[in-house]
């Protein structure tokens, strides 16, 4: 099993009124292919910071983030954008779809940005919409979709460019229990099927049984309970 996402000695500090605060303290994490890891922790424990670093949105004060064995540190803005586009897939809290795009276009735009061949991209869109069960809604705008449907579109969008790593930021926060379970089991299934490494930050304890590992963010480190 290879580890598609590796975080090594991640430290994140910032100055707060002259006092140095450490949010993450030499944090290590390895996520294997096909593995879904849940990260829990109280508010203010640094979950968002952790996810931002893993998602190449924030450069850590110290440490390394490796995707498929290659470090993404020290790259310029454009290359980092490309890393996010090609190697990472994001699922945000309330889907965060683009309001003026139809379902199929939500996926298509990611392929466009990556410069994927049109025929190939269309095939991939069909395939993914089929996988998340939204083929019949492909011409609908985001506002016409239910919360669960929106989150399924977000999952499909995150997988569009066949990334190495899937990152989810409280994907069930705006869903009821049943929909939440549906969504996470879908994520878990796709992560297995497509061999991704996935990290999910969550508060929702009901979905934990669907995850391979559950870690807690405490004092800037990830620990097992």
């Amino acid at each position, binding site marked *: 099993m290879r580890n598609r996402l590796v975080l090594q000695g991640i430290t994140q500090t910032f100055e707060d009124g002259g006092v140095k605060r450490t949010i993450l303290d030499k944090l290590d994490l390895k996520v294997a292919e096909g593995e879904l890891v849940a990260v829990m922790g109280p508010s203010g424990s640094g979950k968002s910071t952790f996810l931002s670093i893993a998602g190449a949105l924030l450069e850590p004060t110290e440490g390394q983030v490796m995707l498929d064995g290659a470090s993404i540190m020290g790259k310029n803005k454009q290359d980092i*954008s490309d890393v*996010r586009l090609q190697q990472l897939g*994001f699922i945000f809290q309330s889907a965060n779809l683009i309001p003026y*795009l139809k379902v199929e*276009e939500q996926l298509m*735009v990611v392929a466009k940005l990556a410069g994927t061949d049109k025929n190939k991209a269309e095939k991939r869109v069909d395939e993914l919409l089929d996988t998340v069960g939204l083929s019949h809604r492909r011409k609908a705008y985001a506002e016409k979709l239910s919360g669960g449907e929106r989150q399924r579109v977000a999952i499909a969008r995150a997988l569009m460019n066949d990334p190495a790593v899937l990152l989810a930021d409280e994907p069930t926060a705006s869903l009821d229990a049943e929909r939440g379970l549906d969504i996470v089991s879908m994520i878990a299934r796709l992560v297995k099927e497509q061999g991704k490494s996935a990290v999910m930050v969550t508060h929702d304890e009901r979905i934990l049984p669907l995850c391979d590992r559950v870690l807690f963010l405490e004092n800037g480190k990830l620990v097992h309970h």
Partner: protein
Amino acid sequence: MYLAIREMRFAKGRYALIATIMVLVSFLVLFVTGLAQGLAYDNAASIKNMAATHFVLEQDSNHRFTRSQVNQDQLEQTRSVVGQENAEPLGVKMTTVSPAGDTKKIDVTLFMVNPEGWLAPTVTEGSPITDLKDGQVVVDQKLSESGVTIGTELVDQASGTKWTVGGFVENESFSHSPVVFLNEQEWLAIQEGSRTSQGTAYANAPLYSAIAVKDAGEKVDSLSTALPNTEVITKSDAVSAIPGYKEEQGSLLMMIAFLFVISAFVLAVFFYVITIQKTSQFGILKAIGTRNSYLAGSVSLQVLLLSIGSLVISVLLVQLFESILPASMPFQLSLSTLALTCVLFVVMSMAGSLFSVWKVTKIDALDAIGRTAA
């Protein structure tokens, strides 16, 4: 491309509103520009139509033909510098005439030109200027609106001289008044009339208002040294010194400049507000790997589409307007002015969008994390 066009398709109402404002502003820009051009031409057509490049005027005449007097000697000297063929005498005098037997008064400008010279206009109706008999003049077509026809006798109010209209010319005006062309003989006649009354001594030396010079090239510099007590001005100097020309063009030009600035600001504000409203959306797009350049291009493309679209509509509107405007309305929009105005408008619009583009590139992708709603 992909995002910009789909967003405009989705938010049709919003973009239609701003496009409407742009159409109105650009229409006004084009219309006022056309009016300014039309008025400029109407004001100074006779000078603008002249083949001259420079004019020799009396010193301290403030570039004004009507204030200047040059004499035969100065004409000869000018000819000796720039060549016999390249200098022509020109007389300009503003006066009021009445058709004989009528109480109607018409302001006109008298232009004395040499009928064989290159300042002579082309007659569109009646006999050519070279064939004029004694006491005959050619006048601008505009006088026909006051009932003047070929054969009508015009009486000069100032000197009491009578002329018979021998032909018509088109588009000849000076300071918005129609031009009456006469030859040297007639010009001398009115001069003598006023001279004798003033009792001046050198009655026989012909006096002109200015000397028109063409093809002078570098000899222009030597002209001013060869001719003391004169000033050598360019054609555009002469045009802008026509009474009322600068004032008229200045105020119109200010309107046009303001309209350009207004259009830039309207667009700037509109896109700035939209951009702020979409901050989290841009954050998400950046988080999933959209480059800054793509988003900036997307905003610019929308501005470009809006400004070009509005321009196309307003150019059509202006053309429609032009066709229904009364002929007496001075309106002139040449292709080159139209193109220049359109290009300027697009450039100003793009400048207006710069602020939003800058704002877009400043939005942090981190905005997408920990947000509950898009």
